[in-house]
């Protein structure tokens, strides 16, 4: 058993545990009230959602949040500590750090989303094949996944980057492919549970084609746990991508990315603490929030 498996089983168990009660559909107003009530009880979750919303807004419309250019600096204003004019301070070229963080959100979040999507699609496909066909396909796919777990994902990503080359998109693909194993395990476990259910047997014995069974019965029921895992993987992907960007494999300078911003401040550690500390704090806040939302999603996501 491995970490992914551990996550897999707990995600699956919770998904199923929540699935069981088929209560009468509550009226909309009371469900709204329930959301409000649970928001009051979970201030952490509310804060997490707010952080994620803000970062997404940064990514979508950076110009709304900052008027400064992320690329062109004012040399006169270089290495200024955080102040009212520059709330995150300025870097060695006089560029506003807040502007760079805000403009970097787009690239960083896009890369993260791409990585999760690559892992989700490729992993689900393998898991679906293994879990539905069983037999020799299952054995072969799962042995490959075992091997993927034997090599740490960061090293796997680095090998993929060596082959694919540098750049944000390649980093995203490398991180996504390195997370295929956990997605395929969860998908396989879910598919096996669902496809031995009575209604699937009934569909099969009444002559429904297997592609239809997959589409109409297996996939919708198995997707809850897989989606909960992708929320969890989002935080991990932010970390992995910022690490690779820190190592210099992401977008080439002067384009800002959260990881490369921290790397850029390395040479000024002694004189300008804000250059490394603040972009790092942004990453921490996003990862913590993503994990918090993932946990909430794990508990309630399967209800739908």
């Amino acid at each position, binding site marked *: *058993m*491995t970490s992914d498996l551990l996550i897999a089983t707990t995600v699956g168990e919770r998904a199923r545990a929540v699935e069981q009660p088929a209560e009468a559909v509550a009226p909309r107003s009371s469900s709204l009230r329930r959301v409000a009530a649970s928001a009051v009880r979970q201030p952490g979750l509310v804060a997490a959602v707010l952080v994620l919303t803000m970062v997404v807004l940064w990514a979508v419309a950076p110009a709304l949040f900052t008027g400064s250019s992320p690329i062109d600096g004012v040399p006169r204003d270089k290495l200024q500590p955080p102040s009212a004019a520059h709330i995150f301070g300025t870097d060695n070229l006089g560029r506003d750090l807040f502007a760079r963080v805000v403009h970097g959100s787009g690239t960083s979040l896009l890369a993260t989303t791409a990585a999760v999507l690559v892992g989700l699609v490729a992993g689900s496909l393998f898991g679906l094949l293994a879990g539905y066909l069983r037999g020799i396909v299952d054995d072969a796919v799962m042995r490959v996944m075992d*091997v993927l777990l034997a*090599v740490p994902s960061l090293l796997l990503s680095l090998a993929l980057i060596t082959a694919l080359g540098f750049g944000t998109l390649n980093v995203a693909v490398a991180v996504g492919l390195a997370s295929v194993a956990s997605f395929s395990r969860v998908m396989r476990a879910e598919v096996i549970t669902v496809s031995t259910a009575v209604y699937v047997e009934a569909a099969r014995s009444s002559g429904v084609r297997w592609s239809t069974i997959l589409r109409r019965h297996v996939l919708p029921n198995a997707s809850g746990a897989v989606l909960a895992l992708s929320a969890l993987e989002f935080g991990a992907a932010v970390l992995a991508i910022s*690490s690779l960007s820190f190592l210099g494999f992401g977008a080439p300078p002067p384009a800002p990315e959260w990881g490369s911003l921290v790397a850029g401040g390395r040479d000024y550690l002694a004189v300008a603490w804000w250059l490394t500390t603040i972009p790092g704090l942004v990453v921490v806040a996003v*990862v913590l929030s993503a994990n918090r939302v993932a946990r909430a999603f794990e508990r309630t996501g399967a209800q739908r």
Partner: protein
Amino acid sequence: MNRYLAKRLLQGLFVLWAAYTLSFLILYLLPGDAAAIQAGGAENGGVDPALVERLRAEYGLDRPLWEQYTTALARALTLDFGTSTQSGTAATAAVSAVLPQTFALAATALPLAVVVGVALAIASTFARWRWLRQALSALPPLGVSVPSFWIGLLLLQFFSFRLRLFPSMGNEGWASLVLPSVALAIPTGAFLAQILSRSLRQTLEQPYIELARAKGAGSARVHFGHALQNAVIPALTLAGVLVGQLLAGTVVTETVFSRVGVGRLVVTAVNSRDIPVVQTVVVFAALVFVLTSLVVDLLYPLIDRRISVTGASLVNA
């Protein structure tokens, strides 16, 4: 016992072979021509076609993939992973030259991670006050959410630039080992604490714990005499992943602290697209995983006597 060991060794060899094959496929099959890359990189644009052809012939890249693979595998069996394009020495020699430095770092960080992780897990379920338990159990999720390069830089900023307690870079002496091993131990320790405290909490809800309490066992006796032994099993199962993570963590840590080691070697190898070195490290990581898992498998029966290593498989009676 011997049959079991033999079976596990065979499985380990399979994983190594598969890791080699997988890295071969990734590095030699994916888009990006290995010869063109090594002749100066596709980024430079003007690569001399004659040089590329010569390199292709030299590396055997003009032959069919199947033939390339079998030749490479046969060489790998004799521990020949090719020649490092950066240094011109054998890739295995390049890796083993810096291995002691990484070993020293990992050997300091691992005990630190285990002690802190286990202590945190126990304290977060054992502490007398509810607020303290809650505060302590918030630490592991925080620890796994913090990028390790950032922790390293914060440590550098505070302990070497402000307080001037430790050197900021290099490999000399014990003092240079302190900050990197702390930075490396934090994510691993937090991960371990997360797994162990989850499993401790589940174990403490078991009926037999209730029984022990009903018979008058104190909190300490319940924890250390009854629960811990069982709760530690899931964490042990992850030992291979944990050690692998630690090894991968050296990539970032050694870069942050400018230390010589396997992790830093990989970064420079990826930068100059030194395929043989990257492949050697990937296979080495798989070897570390296999060995750790093997050691842990042999430890199980010592911790839980219900698990016995008999015949061909692990029997959980």
